[in-house]
């Protein structure tokens, strides 16, 4: 356990006014959620969502912090966090490109878009490029099947995409490929 966590964990039972004992005030937001949920153990998944919203990803320190706050075995928290696809354990890239791979999008060629971006930027689906500029993700179904194939770029939902249009989109934000 790193020093940050040790300090953060102490903070659970020993709250001070002002700065969070961990030295990172983002933990305050987790504390607030924990308190609202009365530290109920079934709040684990919600708490992990909040933590990921705040920190962008779930580091080991955060998982331990949550485990101790909810009085759950660390291995169990780790098991729960890794069970669900939406939790991520690495810092996300600067830009996020999510390709919907639901059935309608599949029928309309979503696979090619994933392959196209993956090859062009040398980033496997579900991972972040080495320079940290782009995270390529796939989604099960975004429920916008009427617009298939659908791509979400930095939060914006775009329908009727193809490999070229998606690559243009990515290039505009991340820069072109050499």
């Amino acid at each position: 356990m790193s020093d940050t966590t040790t300090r953060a964990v102490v903070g659970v039972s020993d709250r001070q006014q002002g700065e969070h004992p961990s030295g990172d005030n983002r933990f305050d937001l987790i504390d607030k959620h924990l308190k609202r949920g009365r530290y109920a153990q079934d709040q684990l998944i919600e708490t992990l969502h909040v933590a990921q919203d705040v920190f962008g990803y779930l580091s080991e320190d955060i998982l331990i912090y949550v485990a101790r706050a909810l009085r759950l075995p660390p291995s169990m928290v780790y098991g729960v966090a890794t069970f669900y696809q939406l939790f991520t354990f690495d810092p996300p890239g600067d830009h996020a490109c999510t390709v919907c791979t639901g059935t309608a999008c599949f029928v309309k060629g979503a696979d090619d878009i994933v392959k196209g971006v993956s090859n062009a930027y040398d980033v496997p689906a579900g991972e972040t490029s080495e320079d940290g500029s782009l995270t390529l993700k796939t989604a099960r179904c975004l429920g916008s099947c009427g617009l298939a194939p659908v791509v979400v770029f930095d939060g914006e939902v775009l329908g009727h995409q193809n490999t070229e249009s998606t690559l243009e989109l990515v290039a505009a934000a991340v820069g072109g490929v050499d």
Partner: protein
Amino acid sequence: MAAPIDLHEVMDREREERFRTRWRVKACASTACMSAGAGATIQAVEDMVEREDMELEVQVIPTGCMGLCSAGPLMRMMRRGGDETDYQKVTPDAAKEIVRSHVLNEEPVPEHLLDTTMPFFTSQERVVLANGGVINPDRIESYVAHGGYQALEKALTSMKPKQVIEEIRRSGLRGRGGAGYPVGSKWSLLAAAGGKTKYVVANGDEGDPGAYMDRTIMEDDPHRLIEGIAIAAYATGADQAYIYVRAEYPRAIERLDRAIRVARRNRLLGRKILDTNFSLAVEVRIGAGAFVCGEETALMASIEGRRGTPQLRPPYPTEKGLWGAPTMINNVETLANVAPIIDRGGDWFASIGTEKSTGTKVFALAGDIVNTGLIEVPMGTSLREIVEEIGGGVPDGRSFKAAQTGGPSGGCIPAKFLDTPVDYESLRELGSIMGSGGLIVMDDEVRMPDVAKFFMEFSMDESCGKCTPCRAGTVQMHNLLQRITDGNGTRRDLRDLEHLCSVVRDMSLCGLGQSAPNPVISTLQYFRSEYEALIDEEEVVHA
């Protein structure tokens, strides 16, 4: 404690509001239209109304899904006490032109007109989606004005819980999540269960790729779901309810959270609902990306904050569910049918659809089809009517090859069965299932073994890993399908694949595993020649 909402007063007030302006502009603000640019369209109209001082003439109402997602953004011009004109593909500029033209010249704008006399609209029967394109989902008053919460009031003030269950039983309503279990029976089981605490859970973990009816209900008519939950809880003696929503639906979560708060403030939830002795707390619980959590026992594990692995049954949730207490899980669409049934009676509901599959079903029509979007049709409507008439057929001069229903748990139905009525039994006989209602049309360019592989990959990725046949069997099936679709498969591979279909179907612990082979089984049944064409005659050629 604040006084409960006076439903009739709200209705009157809303009616007045409705007649306040000569024109009402209803703009579809559901997710599909929003991603087609509805946000900018609505903003443009609102800005224009303000800038050009048309507030006394026009009111702009963002609504839920109007259905024809492929033609979005959709907009409707409504004249006071008069006709409605629908528009499609409404860009911000078009919207401004349309509003001006109607308000100033009483003239429609031909380029963007949407023909509402086409079968897509006329062949539908909207019960669950009745409020789509009608109400503003953000305003409880809008829901109440269209008859909302009347059913709850009726149930609480004039019906005993047993009578409510009886009404549901008479309606013949069956679970809309897939298997089609009779809802009345399920409610009776929970009502009969002992114990102080009982739970009702709305299953909004709509994971089938291609299905988004539950999301639409949660986003566009959240109070209808809440009302259904409240009636279910009253009928079964539950005092705590959860709505389990997948995290991929942030808008639904936000809308439901707000709707719950508003309902509580209006004494439609919380303690002593509508001043009766019935109390109910409702809470939203969020998934985190796991298809298997649509399975009842996995869903409960997830609500409890654990890994979403299915548990052995028996004991069934109605005996031992959340935290060991009796629990009943109903799908969102199922619960959305409850208020209309209580409102208009079980017999009315049973008169729609077929004898064994009553009521309507919402389908998400997608794939190689002209009209994509959400449709609601009476049970028993033929696939042909859905695909050719409502859906407008297959585009680009291609021909229909198969319709996929039930997602990764369902199957592919070939053209020769297009006249099959869509109901629980007929679809099962064809080796598919109703599922939650995704209906993907595939044209003759689609290779069916590829489709089977696509779904197997899905099931493999979504397997929780608890039981051997599903965890390891889906991997091997995917492996075999990969080899076959790559053109490297052998006759023995095909044999192994078929055997694994039985093993995984019969030996898996939960519904996900048991139904994972369905896409393979049904494509093998109807499109076997496509597999045969791909495989090598040799027995063994792996190296």
